[in-house]
């Protein structure tokens, strides 16, 4: 996998957009998920995830090829998310919560095609609760927690993505997890 990515990156540097398309295919779900966990909104997450890939393409020359590509890509995506959170304007999207309702989004106002089984509804509700609690975390804890719980991410990688010392990353994960514990313990 790494060798494929390395080969594709060489082609991208030469300007090959099809090769970049393959890279997008490999990482699109992780990057989208990262953005969604950070922003809590599909529309915004898609927008920022796309932006992250475009920035990666435009700045591919500055990527050091002996480093892990995913680390570099996630760093771009995380920074874009943090920027977006900082200058967040009140926008209205389909999955933004409808004012005055608890957990009701515009999606739930569009009638769904088929009723979901009980267990699935429950697990979806739990997922929504967890996601909502993650979104309540201050952005510096949120980024550490979101990265920590993405597949195969080591503390070292997180420290590289966030450009923070390892000790700081640990502290942020611990504080973030503690905050989540207090919110989720009675669920």
């Amino acid at each position: 996998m790494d060798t494929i990515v390395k080969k594709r990156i060489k082609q991208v540097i030469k300007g090959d957009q099809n090769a970049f398309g393959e890279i997008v295919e490999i990482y699109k779900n992780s990057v989208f998920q990262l953005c969604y966990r950070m922003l809590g909104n599909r529309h915004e997450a898609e927008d920022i995830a796309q932006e992250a890939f475009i920035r990666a393409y435009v700045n591919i020359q500055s990527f050091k090829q002996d480093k892990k590509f995913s680390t570099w890509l996630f760093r771009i995506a995380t920074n874009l998310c943090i920027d977006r959170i900082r200058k967040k304007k009140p926008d209205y999207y389909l999955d933004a919560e409808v004012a005055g309702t608890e957990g009701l989004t515009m999606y739930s106002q569009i009638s769904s095609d088929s009723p979901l089984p009980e267990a699935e509804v429950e697990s979806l509700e739990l997922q929504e609760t967890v996601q909502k609690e993650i979104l309540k975390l201050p952005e510096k804890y949120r980024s550490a927690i979101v990265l920590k719980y993405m597949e195969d991410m080591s503390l070292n990688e997180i420290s590289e993505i966030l450009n923070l010392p390892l000790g700081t990353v640990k502290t942020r994960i611990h504080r973030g997890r503690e905050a989540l514990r207090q919110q989720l313990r009675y669920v």
Partner: protein
Amino acid sequence: MCPEQIFELMHDYLDEELDPEKERALRDHLKSCKECETIFNELKKTDAFVRGISHMQAPPDFTANVLARLPKEKKRIWMQRWFTNHPMLTAASVFIILMMGSLFSTWSQDQEFSVSKQKNLVVKNNTVIVPKGETVKGDVVVHNGNVRIEGEVQGDVTVINGEKYLASAGHVTGQIEEVNEVFDWIWYHMKRITHDVLDIFGQPETK
């Protein structure tokens, strides 16, 4: 209240960063302290919850949307990719271009009168005559001239850019062909090349 250090151990445990010795210390403490045990269980539950939120799929047209937003690709790259993706077509088109080039250049060089060398052919004013009663062995090829066949030709007769006249007494054992237009001429060349190629492949078998 238990020392802060115990909470650190719990988190390190969840980060899978706890060595066995410290893990034993943590376990010992948890056995003796109900309060900490509850917190530890809550932390483990939280950890499982966050881990359990399902993986997300990017929207289906995500890649296409990204590619559509990229700055324009250089033409050169596009051509290179096309060539590498279609090696057979590339080889074929290079072959055709080269062949066309050589054919056309031969066509334009070929404006002089010439005739294949057979000793009993008579040439008069750009007309090649196969005299009455004579037998010409082998193929007769005439460029930019006419041919009159009054005798016998044991082989094919080809006239390029000219006319053939076959007298009633004349006889050709092979085929008679007249080539007057560029495309006829190209076709003639192609046939000849194929014939030569087949000969090359055919020869070893007959030997």
